[in-house]
Structure formats: structure tokens, C-alpha cells
């Protein structure tokens, strides 16, 4: 899952990026509305975390402009908790709303829920054959036995599971698993897939030659 954080306070931005990366997300950051809008428009993020009060272009304006082209789920962060602000945010196309100062665990839970909703998932648990993925705890079990996955392996599995039945191209997988700061090599993906198949059975991910990967 790849997330865009648009936040002008540098310390908070850095901290959020760090926290989300540790949760296994690929994270990009923008320091103002203009940069944020450019990044949000040039890539299909799985979700955007958007601060309201920003220089150059504030969160409302960026959201309004973004909504003309993209339906990316947006979680608004604001220091204003006025009722009208909340209504305004949701009316203008924000998908969720969090008031500063927020609890990091709440932010993460809301982000997970936002992504689940946007991909029509109802639960944080996904069952694939004999494998159970818990996207909340970020753990996997096979026939009830816990299986240790690396963050990347889990991210690949999660992305394919969320888009179950769809064939995901290698490019799309790259884009959603690695952020702008990652140096990516295509054979790395093959290594991760190989490792997942070794741990959870080779039939869990199907390879469509020349197209990509798929969980059926």
C-alpha cells in the first residue's frame, strides 16, 4: 500500500512517514498543497493523509482540485475541531477526519479502515485457501500455525489479497510497494514472491505469464 502524506510541519511529517513505513506502507511526503496536489495527481495512491492548514494551498483547496480527477481516499488532519469544519471536510469529499493532536494508533486504524472501504473489504482478516491474513496485526497463519513474513512479503500479499481476482502487473506492484525513495530492482520482486510461495505454498499466488500476479 502506498500512502501520500501532505503536512507542512516538518517534524510531524517526518514522524508520520517513519511510523507508516514501520507499518509496512510505502510512503511519499509533500510539504505543501501544491506539491501534494502534483504528487496526488501523478500517481494512484491507496490513501492520502492531508493536513488542512498549509502554506501556498490549504487542504480544502487541494482536496477540491484533487476530486476533479481522482477518487483516492483522503483522511483529513486538522487542528480545528469546529463542527462546521468537520461537516465542510466531509462534504468536500474527505473520506475521514482526524483532529490534531491525534493518537497514532487511531490514525493507523482509520487509515486501514479507509483502505478497506475503498477496496470493498469488510474485515481486517482475509482468508486465502488455508492461509489467514490479519491486516491489522500484520500476521499470517497457515492452517492455524503462525508463519513469519517480512514486511515486504506481507505488503505484496496484502496488496494482491485486497485486489483479489484481479491480475496485478509487476509495475503496479512496484508502484504500490515502493515509495519514491526506494531503490527498486525488478528481480527483488521475484525474490519476495519466491519466498512467499515457499512459506505459504506455491499455489497461493498465480503467475500470469507476461501479465503479472494474481490471488484467485
Amino acid at each position, binding site marked *: 500500500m502506498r500512502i501520500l502524506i501532505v503536512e507542512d*510541519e516538518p*517534524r510531524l511529517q517526518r514522524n508520520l512517514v517513519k511510523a507508516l513505513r514501520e507499518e509496512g506502507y510505502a510512503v511519499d511526503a509533500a510539504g505543501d498543497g501544491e506539491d501534494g496536489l502534483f504528487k496526488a495527481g501523478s500517481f494512484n495512491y491507496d490513501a492520502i493523509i492531508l493536513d488542512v492548514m498549509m502554506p501556498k494551498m490549504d487542504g480544502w483547496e487541494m482536496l477540491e482540485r484533487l476530486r476533479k480527477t481522482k477518487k483516492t481516499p483522503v483522511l483529513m488532519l486538522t487542528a*480545528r*475541531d469546529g463542527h462546521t469544519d468537520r461537516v465542510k471536510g466531509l462534504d468536500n469529499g474527505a473520506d475521514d477526519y482526524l*483532529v*490534531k*493532536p491525534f493518537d497514532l*494508533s487511531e490514525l493507523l486504524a482509520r487509515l486501514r479502515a479507509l483502505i478497506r472501504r475503498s477496496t470493498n473489504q469488510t474485515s481486517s482478516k482475509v482468508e486465502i485457501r488455508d492461509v489467514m491474513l490479519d491486516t491489522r496485526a500484520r500476521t499470517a497463519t497457515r492452517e492455524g500455525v503462525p508463519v513469519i513474513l517480512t514486511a515486504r512479503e506481507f505488503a505484496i500479499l496484502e496488496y494482491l489479497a485486497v485486489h483479489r481476482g484481479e491480475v496485478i502487473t509487476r509495475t503496479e506492484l512496484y508502484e504500490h510497494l515502493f515509495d519514491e525513495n526506494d531503490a527498486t530492482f525488478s528481480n527483488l520482486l521475484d525474490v519476495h514472491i519466491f519466498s512467499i510461495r515457499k512459506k505459504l505454498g506455491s499455489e497461493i499466488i498465480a503467475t500470469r505469464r507476461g501479465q503479472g500476479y494474481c490471488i484467485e
Partner: protein
Amino acid sequence: MIFNSIKWRLLLWMAFLLTVILASLGVAICHIHLADQLRQFDDRLERQVATMSAALYVPAPTGDNTGGPADHNNAPPPDNQAEDGFQLPPDIERLFGTRNTNSYYFVLWLDGDVEAFKASANAPGDVTRPHTAVKDAGTRIRERGLYREAYHVTERGDCVLVGRTAVPEYDEAGRFARLVFLGGAGLLGLVLAAAWWLLVRALRPLEKITSAAMKISSGDLSQRINIPDTESELGRLAAVLNSTFARLETSFAQQKQFTSDASHELRTPISVLISEAQTTLARERTPQDYREALAASLDAAQKMRRLTESLLELARLDAGQETLHRDNINLASLVQDSVKFVRALAAEARVQIHCDLAEVQISCDASRIAQVITNLLTNAINYNYVNGEIRITTRREGGTAVLTVADTGQGIAPSAIPRVFERFFMADESRSAGNTGLGLSICKAIVEAHGGSISVTSSLGRGSAFTVRLPV
């Protein structure tokens, strides 16, 4: 209750007063009318009595008709001439024959007799001779129940009485009274209707004012009273209220903006603190990670400290609680101290400070004014270019001490100039760590607390000049 409204109270009072006035007027008119009726009636009665008396005592034409009442006047009737032989002239005699109870009746007493000598057929049976002494000769009126009678007693003691029932007069007075009553009631109704119309018209602006004020008190501060006639009393009241409402709205909006800005500025460092701590505690870290997290937390906490101190200071200055410890101070030496204080910062930024200081003694709170000067100097350094300059001057203009801090820095965009003293306004928008956006607001508050003023001129890319004027 509806009758407590001004409209109803005015109307009821008006109705009450009008009723009293009209009723008294009506009673007076009816009274005068009745009196007039009776007077005219009395006149007629008197004329009748006079006619009768004259007819009785006029000397009879010479001839056989002796012994008639004609000579009665001159000489007492001879005893031998019996009273029953007394003859009345025929036309008078005819009058005595009237039977109509509504027309005049006549009674005649001779000498001092109590028994009537002659009474007309329609005279009521209870007519008695008026108790009038002979010497009280003349015509008099008496009222007997519904009858009114006029009588004349001659010097000889004969008495002629003419009477008639006054019922037609009373009836007429009653009709007149009814007419007056109906007219009065109609007039009252008309006047009250007109008064109501006027009251409604006159009080309509008041209702507008009330409804606008109600909407404002329930939170809609954008409401205004719309009264086209601005010259009337209520129009002027509405104008005054409107300007009050406008000031209220502005003040509320400013307050709201300030609270909102303050909450945003305070919550951002708190967010940093919380998320920094939560992220760091989520798993085992290296000592380097912990150091970084602590440094970030300290930074956020210090930003909060600066903010809360500035906010408190502003709040105290706003409330007028900050007492100024005034001393007689030389502004030039105050500036020199401040320049010393920022010398290191200026050197680091490679900015030259030039002083052109004339000695001016002012009465001020030295630490407060030093704070203003330091703040202006710090801004001049922070927004300056490398190798830029700052020129600080003091001089006296009449009763005013003038301090100018001019820099060769970035300057302020013309659109931002009117807002630089606003709270939380930051012209360059990038929030540098040390900037609260309150510095200039505090300067302004301090200078104004001293009875002075602060202003700025600026040209973008070439520098700004802040001028502080303080009373000596």
C-alpha cells in the same frame, strides 16, 4: 400577554381617555340641550300666562258687557256680582275646553281662593294653588313631576296658571342623547381604528428591530435592521444598532479567528510530541533514535512554551492587566542595549547594524520597550539578505520620540502590509521553528499600552522600515 404590548397599552389608554372625554362632552351637550329645551318651553308657558292675564284683565269694550273681569282690574267685583256670574271672553273660554292632555291646561284662582275658580278640562286633578304671597307678583315657573307650570299672581291675589306635560321635551332630550351617544361611539371607533393603524405603522420598525435583535442573539450575527427612513427616531436607533451589530460581528469573527489560529498553533507541536513518542515507543530503538526523538520532543515543547508565553502576554495586554513600570529612560541607550543583545545573531547572519541615535528621554517601561526594539531588530536580521544592513535611528519630533528600524531585506508584499500586525499572520508563510507569528502583535500591544503607535513601510525585495512613535 398580548395586552402588555406597547401597541395594546397605548390603544387601551387612548380608548379610556377618549371615552372619558367624549362621555363628559356628551353629558354636557345633552344637559345644555335639555336646559335649552326647557327654557324654550318655559318661554312659551310664560307667553301663554301673559296672554291669559292680558285677556282676563284687559278693560272690556264699553257696552253691556259690564261686570266682566275687565273691570275686575280696576275695582273689586261687587259683592253682589256672584263669582259664578263671572264671564270669560269666549276665545279664552274655548281654551278651557281643551281635553287633549298633551296640550296646555289652564287654571284660574280668584282672590286668595284655594279652590280653583276655573280649570280647563285637561288639567290634572292635583293642581293646587301655588303658595305665593300676593306681594310676590310676577310670572314664575314651577316643576311638578312631569309637568311644568307657569303662573302669575296679580296684585289682587288672582292667580293664572298655565301648565303642560314636559314629556315631549324629555323625549326629545332622550332622542338627542341617543344621537349624541351613537355619534360619540362612532367617533370613538373611528379614532381608535385610525390610532391602531398609526400605531401599527409607527411600531413596525420596532418589530423589525426586535426580530433582527432576536436573530442576532440566537447567533446569526450577520443580521441587520432594514429601515428605509433613516431620519426618524427609530431609523436613527436602527442605524446605531446596525453599527453596533457590525462591530459585534467583526469582533466575534476576530475572536473566532484568533481562537482557531491559537488552537492550530498549539495543537501542531502537541501532535508532534504525541506521535514522536508513540512512534518511538512502538518498538526497540537504537540510542541514536531515542536521542533524535527526544530532541524533536524538546523542540516541540519549546515551541509550545514560546507560544503559551506569547499568548499569555497578549491576553494580559488585551485585558489591560499588564502594569507598566514607567521610568524616565533615554531611548538611545535602550537601543544600544538591544543592539548589543542581538549583535551575535547579526554577526551570524552577516548583517551590519548602523545606529544614528539622538538622545530622547521618554517615560516608559524599559524592559517592555527593549522587548519591542529587540523584536524589531531580530525580524530585521532574520528577514535580511546576507551582507544586508539595518539602520536604527532615534529622534525627537515635537512631543514624540520616533524610533525607526529599517532593513535591506526581503520586504513585505503590499497585500500583506495591512496584516503584518495581525495575530498569527506570517507574511512568508513558511513556518520557521522560532516564529510564533505573534511577535509584531505583541510589539503593537506594548506600544499602544504606552499610548504610542507603530507603522511599517516596505518595498518588496528592497527592505522594510518599522516606525515606533512614543509620547515623551
